[in-house]
């Protein structure tokens, strides 16, 4: 057993996850008997666990208080009794109850979430009452306002939140700045850009009425079909197939539609039934429903609208971290191209336009051990972070002042100077060339400074 394995088992034992007599426990004891370092670790971990339990005590009390506050404002039994009546179809009773008891319930318990609360998503029970309307997808993530219209309504759009179930025939629409991710039962994903409308049909088919759609199908799953009108008010349709394991972006516009095969070959069938295979990374344009030519696609720029959705998943989301790496590599390629060095390329401009939203993903990239294998990319991340980091990133930047790479420290110090107006007697250039000991001291000074100035920063903001 290695010391690393032993340390995992020490944690497991302290957390009650390693029963006595378990072979791993026996092996751990044998290792501890012969390893003084691990015995010290075991003791330190035990003490640390008790300290952590104490440190989290106020937090646990807060959790109890939160639960009690939530419990106090939850719906009363009476309203749900009425809801149950309504669901059972006793129409006359519902009307009578709603008229006579509804207003009184609000007056009696003003703190309740009353009937006006926005339970706008179709319930499972509601879905079940529709003909053949079993849920086929779920809203996983959204930015901005997203609406759905059930299949049995013509134009009754209601806002939806993540978690809402969608049934066959439901339509989904996004506002200009909104993005939404839908997940199908088999794990396939459909993402819609702003100002997009799509309808979920049976047999893994999505009808794109307008806008832009991205789809991904897991390997081993059947292909996903997206149909779209060839042009406004035109007859026939264009069909795009996302293959198993494939990813596709499809933008449908009056002037012409563009299909980009992000990963794996995609297939597009034009309005005359002619099929075109689009290899990974290529794009095909369709004008009036007819394929008019294939070219190399710009995958990163075409799908930049996905960035906001991916950021919702957290800075360490694997898809986002991979995208950050690709974007940084692309920025490096752009900077070595023939254009003037002072002008950022389109990818860098696109990232800068999204501003401080990139701060956490960039900081996450710099901290990741994987970034160490490509210093150029890491330094590009640090340079962008220096320009984009908001005040909330000051803690991260102070952390980067301790980085082993002087250039990373330089960019972190530059950002701190920009955000705080301070250098604490060590300029960015000095931070870059300081030996390890001085670096530690600078970092400690910044930590102390930040602890002292956090409250003032709040008042000033």
């Amino acid at each position, binding site marked *: 057993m290695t010391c690393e394995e032993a340390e995992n088992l*020490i*944690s497991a034992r302290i*957390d009650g996850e390693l029963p006595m007599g378990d072979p791993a426990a026996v092996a751990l004891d044998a290792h501890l008997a012969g390893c003084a370092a691990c015995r010290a670790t075991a003791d330190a971990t035990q003490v640390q666990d008790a300290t952590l339990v104490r440190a989290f005590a106020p937090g646990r009390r807060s959790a109890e208080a939160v639960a009690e506050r939530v419990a106090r404002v939850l719906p009363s039994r009476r309203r749900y009794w009425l809801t149950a009546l309504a669901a059972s179809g006793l129409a006359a009773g519902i009307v009578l109850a709603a008229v006579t008891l509804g207003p009184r319930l609000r007056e009696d318990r003003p703190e309740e979430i009353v009937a006006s609360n926005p339970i706008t998503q179709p319930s499972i029970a509601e879905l079940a009452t529709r003909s053949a309307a079993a849920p086929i997808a779920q809203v996983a993530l959204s930015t901005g306002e997203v609406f759905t219209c059930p299949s049995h309504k013509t134009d009754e759009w209601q806002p939806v939140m993540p978690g809402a179930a969608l049934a066959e025939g439901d339509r989904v629409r996004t506002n200009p700045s909104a993005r939404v991710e839908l997940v199908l039962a088999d794990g396939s994903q459909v993402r819609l850009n702003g100002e997009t409308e799509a309808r979920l049909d049976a047999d893994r088919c999505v009808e794109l009425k307008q806008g832009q759609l991205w789809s991904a199908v897991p390997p081993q799953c059947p292909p996903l079909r997206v149909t779209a009108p060839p042009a406004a008010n035109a007859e026939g349709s264009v069909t795009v197939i996302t293959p198993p394991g494939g990813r596709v972006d499809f933008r449908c516009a009056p002037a012409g539609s563009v299909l980009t095969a992000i990963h794996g070959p995609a297939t597009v069938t034009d309005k005359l039934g002619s099929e075109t295979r689009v290899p990974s990374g290529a794009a095909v344009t369709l004008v009036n429903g007819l394929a008019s030519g294939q070219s190399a696609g710009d995958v990163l720029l075409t799908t930049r609208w996905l960035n906001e959705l991916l950021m919702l998943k*957290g800075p360490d989301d694997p898809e986002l971290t991979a995208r950050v790496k690709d974007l940084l590599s692309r920025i490096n390629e752009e900077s070595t191209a023939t254009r003037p060095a002072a002008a950022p390329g389109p990818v860098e401009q696109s990232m800068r336009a999204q501003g401080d939203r990139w701060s956490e993903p960039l900081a996450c990239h710099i901290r990741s051990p994987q970034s160490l294998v490509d210093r150029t990319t890491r330094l590009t991340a640090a340079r962008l972070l220096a320009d984009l980091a908001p005040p909330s990133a000051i803690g991260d930047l102070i952390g980067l002042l301790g980085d082993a790479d002087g250039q990373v420290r330089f960019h972190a110090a530059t950002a701190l100077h920009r955000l705080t107006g301070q250098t604490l007697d060590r300029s960015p250039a000095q931070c870059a060339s300081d030996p390890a000991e001085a670096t530690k001291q600078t970092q400690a000074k910044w930590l102390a400074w930040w602890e002292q100035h*956090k409250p003032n920063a709040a008042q000033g903001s």
Partner: protein
Amino acid sequence: MSDGEMVRRALAGDAAAYGQLARRWAARVLAVCHARTRDRHAAEDLAQEALLRGMRSLRTLVEPEKFGPWVIGIAIRVCLDWRKSPKRGEVSFDALAGAEDEDRGPGFANDDADRRAADTRREQAERLMREVERLPEPYREVLMLYYYQPDGCSYRDLAELLGVSVATINARLTKARQMLRSRMMSECESAADERSA
């Protein structure tokens, strides 16, 4: 009673089931909010908001047994909205400034020596919490989920909630503790260096 059963009872009109769900999940929702915001006080408001949104939308939950991951997803969304909000800094900083008084509790000692000892313990706990908040997100999240729960969370529950293996939970908790020990130690060394300088 399982989460799924509670959800079904709540939807059938059992108001107490809502409260039970809130009590069962509040600590984990708060842990996720704290991990995502690194601000305990803002996290309390956000956790409350997430739980309320979850309860209001309970009817849209497709798989009642997955109430936990679902409400955690709502909490993540609420935190992301907060992070995009221009006013988030105000909440954060004010909250930090007022954190300590609340934690003294009614039984705070009157005797000077006891008070000093209690002050030291509280300062240590605050320093430790600051370091927890500075851990990289995967480690911060798992550590907070574990310690916010009154009796700890089983590795299996955590694995299910975060969609990773039990071994990953074990490794992340171990690494989080290791990083914390190392950071606390270097902080002590820095303080000692400063005193001796």
